[in-house]
């Protein structure tokens, strides 16, 4: 029997009475790469933030590793790695210092910490650049360091919030390969991106969100079957997505999400 690492039940978040996440329920099994897709303002980031305890839900329940995340999050945090959309590294610290700082937040010390720094920098291909200040890195290198800072404590669940925004194709490909590798090593992944081909390439299951609700969930094949009766359809994920969410522009002012 598969074990749910993440379980959301009726998860709702309201701002000024308006629901930006509306009764979302889903389960993510151990070993999955779970993709969360949705147009701007769909509620993806708010859902991610609630899973990470960065935002308190208005109602509903979150279970992480079988425990209630709202009352018993401390233990779950040790198994959680969060890669935010914005870079979360200090420009005035060297690569190894950034890794040291963020890995140490999980109580790792001494030789174990040194090994974790080396391993995580090697994982993202920055071991040779360990003594370079991160402000001198290219966009792709900063993104990779951003990931290194979140994986040093060997989390069982890795949450990537659009980790490939604004970087070159080589860096993007490198990051995707590393995400797949981390998954092969046993990590469960939650991944959001606007790049459909990325989701299509790495995710085993996908949820499509719109207006705070999950409107479809399943493998790519299952999602395709929702919009076409053809058995051997060659529809891309983008076509499926646009069919499900519509082609109307989604403009959200700051604060609406």
């Amino acid at each position: 029997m598969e074990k749910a690492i993440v379980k959301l039940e009726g998860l709702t978040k309201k701002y000024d009475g308006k629901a930006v996440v509306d009764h979302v329920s889903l389960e993510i099994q151990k070993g999955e790469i779970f993709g969360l897709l949705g147009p701007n303002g769909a509620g993806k980031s708010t859902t991610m933030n609630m899973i990470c305890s960065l935002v308190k839900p208005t109602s509903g329940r979150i279970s992480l590793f079988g425990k209630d995340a709202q009352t018993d999050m401390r233990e779950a945090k040790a198994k959680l790695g969060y890669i935010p959309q914005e870079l979360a590294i200090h420009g005035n610290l060297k690569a190894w210092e950034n890794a040291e700082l963020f890995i140490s937040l999980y109580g790792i010390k001494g030789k174990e910490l040194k090994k974790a720094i080396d391993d995580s920098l090697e994982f993202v291909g920055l071991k040779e650049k360990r003594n370079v200040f991160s402000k001198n890195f290219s966009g792709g290198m900063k993104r990779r360091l951003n990931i290194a800072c979140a994986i040093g404590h060997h989390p069982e669940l890795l949450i990537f919030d659009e980790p490939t925004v604004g970087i070159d194709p080589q860096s993007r490909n490198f990051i995707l390969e590393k995400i797949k590798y981390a998954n092969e090593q046993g990590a469960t992944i939650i991944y959001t991106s606007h790049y459909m081909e990325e989701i299509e390439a790495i995710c085993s299951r996908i949820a499509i969100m719109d207006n705070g609700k999950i409107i479809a969930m399943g493998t790519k094949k299952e999602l395709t079957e929702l919009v076409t009766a053809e058995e051997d359809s060659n529809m891309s994920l983008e076509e499926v997505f646009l069919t499900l969410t519509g082609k109307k522009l989604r403009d959200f002012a700051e604060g609406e999400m």
Partner: protein
Amino acid sequence: MPLILIKNNMKLMFRSKAFLVIMIIMPVIVIALLSTAFKDMMASAREIDPFTVGYRITADSPYQAYLPELKEVCAENDVNLVEYPEGDMENLIKNQSVTAFVDIQDGDYILYQSSEKNAEALVTESIFDTFFYNVDANQVLVKTQLEQGITAVKLIEPDKQLVAHEVLEVEPMPTSTDYYGIIYIAFWSFCGMMPLAAVISSERKNAIPQRMRVSQMTKGQFYLAKFIPCFLVTFIEMCIAWTISVVLLDIHWGQIAASAAIILLATMAAAAIGVFLYQLFSKVVVSIVVGFLLTWIAGFFGGSFDPYIYEDFPITLMKASPLYYVNRTLVEFSTKGFSDYTGTCLFYLISLIIVFGILGSVLMNRKVEE
């Protein structure tokens, strides 16, 4: 204790060149400028070295007979009385042959002085006034006794002092260099929130607070990771500025260990206030402006911009400023070796650390909760 986070936050603070200049170089420059600018103002109560007074006396002056005794009195007061029967008294003063000049005439005398030697002139005037008062009094006494047919004339005993000269215990004055050298290290210690801006702005520019909140850090650790590096870096910077100013400007601190402890407590109070302000305002620049304004006001009333003993501020306002107690304590350590204000100073600083420590951590917890 989040030691690695504290260490890296300290690195961030020390790598901010602008704040290093503000916290180390600026106090030394300000001390050098102000101590020079206010040198004369602070010099009025200095010790007076022995000096020479020139005199001229008319041939038929009734005081001629008393000159040997007058010279004796002057010598007792470290004043060398030298006769200049000829010569221009203005030139004598200008070329510093004499510090003052007394022109003794038939019934009175005129004292000439330079505008730079007020203290010496006052000493001279006091000696001459007292001496001639005694002479005149004796003359009147003799005349009266003779008129009354008393042959065994009694004079005022020369040893009997008509005016007692009591040296009172007053607050010793520091030199301007010592004074500004001490109070500006104290003032800058209270600007201790500044280095933390390097960490706060770097964190807020990036998504670091979110990442930290996903970690296993407790709320208390969040607070300590800001508070401890903030006061440690400020204290180290103050020690560097302190050492540079002592070496370059020869500033005399008293009770070094106690002074350092007070500076450490001042940086802790400033760090507690700083962390509180950074939580209160979402913009770093607003927090710094408000923090600096509060420090400036505390310094204004606490004597950081003028010697507090000359200030005309209401004493209530002065005593409301924590810097007043810090300044007085540190300056009196230098001039007297002890200070009656030490207890109040410690009470004030520890109270600030506790009150703003609680407020800052409560505010930080609330932000984490949000």
